[in-house]
């Protein structure tokens, strides 16, 4: 079991890609439609769109980290940046290069001469990069190549009993083998933070976990809103969850029983292996964006209600918490953990199935979200 069956794409900085994407990244919202047009006309490039128009405000540094981290995710063979060639856009590109992005193409609107020409040049560049990407081969990779993101969304009463603890089993197995696993969603550990802090590698890391939750809660209270009234969400309540604490205790189970090695800021790239906590919002897409920017290269997403969501860079494996949903939403669910509640499988059996699926997807198996071309994107802002 210790010999890794993984094959992946080795990047020059030593990180590993489980995919070999050519990403088209507009650095201004007005270039979003150009990015989308390049994606549609190219032979397989992926594009994201967003609503940042270069505003310089209190969220600027967060946006720069997010876009630079996303661009340099190890699953990207190359990123084509569409820009107005502003100083902050150049900072994003430089940061992406320093984070290890191996192939950079910078297309400025002014150089192209018009949006129409920008799209034409972008398609040519994308197709050339895609041809080069095809020439790179997967090579045997160690277990540490995997950086797993743990995500849950649309939770229900079974989340904390079936899919989340089963994912915890898979996460523990991977961490034991030397991989990295990241738990996020600060909103969703509220009320369970003391249990996570007790598993910290040092007392300092434990304090950091608790402080991250306190910082988050006070930023929400500062807005004059009691989060404990807004969570669990309406969808969660309809799914049978009673309180925020119940939701949190269930959500935290995704991280199994491993020791917490450290705490990451939103979009921060971990510098060691092991289990981490990242300070991300509970908003599924902002959370996935933070993981991608933090160089997570594969995600397992548990859901009680079902969601089609995916990512432009990371394969996202969907695990259903209950059999009825897994049966009715077949084309968006990869695995069913409802069998635990049905009495058909044990927690460790489902945990093993999730582990095996992570390995298969890491080696190239397409997820349902990838097949459907789902790659929503959201920028997380703290100030508005």
């Amino acid at each position, binding site marked *: 079991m210790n010999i890794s069956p993984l094959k992946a794409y080795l990047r020059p900085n030593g990180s590993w890609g489980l995919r070999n994407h050519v990403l088209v990244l507009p650095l201004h*919202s*007005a*270039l*979003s*439609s*150009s990015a989308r047009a390049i994606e549609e006309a190219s032979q397989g490039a992926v594009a994201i*769109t967003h*609503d940042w*128009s*270069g*505003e310089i405000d209190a969220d600027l540094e967060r946006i720069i980290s997010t876009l630079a981290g996303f661009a340099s995710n190890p699953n990207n063979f190359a990123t084509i940046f569409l820009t*107005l060639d*502003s100083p902050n856009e150049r900072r994003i590109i430089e940061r992406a290069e320093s984070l290890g992005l191996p192939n950079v193409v910078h297309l400025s*609107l*002014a150089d*192209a*001469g*018009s*949006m*129409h*020409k920008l799209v034409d040049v972008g398609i040519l560049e994308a197709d050339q990069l895609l041809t080069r990407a095809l020439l790179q081969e997967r090579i045997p990779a160690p277990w540490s190549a995997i950086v797993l993101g743990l995500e849950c969304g*649309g939770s229900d009463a079974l989340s904390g009993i079936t899919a989340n603890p089963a994912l915890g089993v898979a996460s523990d197995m991977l961490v034991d083998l030397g991989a990295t696993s990241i738990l996020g969603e600060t*909103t969703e550990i509220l009320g369970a933070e003391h249990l996570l802090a007790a598993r910290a590698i040092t007392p300092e890391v434990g304090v950091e976990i608790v402080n991250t939750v306190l910082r988050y809660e006070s*930023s*929400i209270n500062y*807005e*004059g*809103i009691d989060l404990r009234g*807004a969570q669990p*969400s*309406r*969808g*969660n309540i*309809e*799914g049978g969850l009673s309180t925020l604490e119940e939701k949190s205790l269930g959500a935290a189970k995704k991280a199994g029983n491993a020791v917490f090695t450290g705490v990451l800021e939103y979009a921060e790239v971990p510098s060691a292996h092991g289990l981490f906590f990242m300070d991300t*919002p*509970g*908003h*599924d*897409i*902002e959370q996935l964006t933070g993981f991608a920017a933090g160089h997570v290269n594969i995600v397992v997403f548990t859901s009680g*209600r*079902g*969601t*089609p*969501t995916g990512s432009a860079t990371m394969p996202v494996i969907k695990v259903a918490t209950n059999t009825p*949903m897994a049966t*009715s*939403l*077949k*084309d*968006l669910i990869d695995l069913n953990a409802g069998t635990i509640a049905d009495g058909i499988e044990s927690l460790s059996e489902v945990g093993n199935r999730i582990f095996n699926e992570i390995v298969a997807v890491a080696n190239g198996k397409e997820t349902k979200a990838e097949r*459907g071309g*789902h*790659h*929503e*994107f*959201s920028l997380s*802002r703290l100030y*508005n």
Partner: protein
Amino acid sequence: MKMEGFDHGTRGIGVRDYQLILPSVVCSTHISRRIAKDVNAVTFSHQHGCGIIGADVAGIGDFFASLADHPNVSSVLVVSLGCETIQGQELAEKLVTKNASTKYQIIQDSGGVEATVTAGITAVRSLQESYPTKRRPLNDLRVGISASSNSSIANNLLEALSALDIYTELVGGKSPADSFSHLMEKKVHLILSFPTGDQPASGFPLIPVINIASDSALHQAISADFDVPAGTPVENIVKLILEVANGRETIAEINKSGEILAPRLVRST
């Protein structure tokens, strides 16, 4: 110049005839785009609908309602995930009390992605049949201007349009996308945009945007993205406004450029 618009019932008379596929949450934006592509409707990407708190729950809901009630819109299909904060079904039920030509589709109740796309396409086609395009004279053109208030050409245009009894609204937001959203809420039929010299030309999915260049280096370098070069006389711009109102496509429309920016007040959770 006589203007012919599209009769959109309770929404008013529009200068464009758009069906809107409205995703009530970021999670349904991709499926909305697939439906829109198949039936040649308009949709947009956004990152809202869930994880929002406080004033934004009502604010973003009202913003979506305002898009759905725009005079350039003929009918609306709301595409909902099902478990989002802004419940698509409730949004659609609210919209339908104002405009009967509204339907909704919920992914979690529809049997998955492909089933939602298929059902959504059927729903849009039935809206097309029930609410066929009807032309009608347009007598009360509403023009939005996105510019800083000290722009002299924008002020000259305001005067020229007022002299023609055309309603005008001037907004100078923090970005063109932000101004366009405010102007949309004022139900303007079309927008004249004066982006600052460091900003590109851009559009808005439901509203034709006429981009007017400044003499900045960027604008000179990308002059092909602008409908109107710097220094164009006001009367020529007024003539273009009337042509666009009568159906002439703007460059932003041809490029399908422009994203909708929903104004948000509070951080998401």
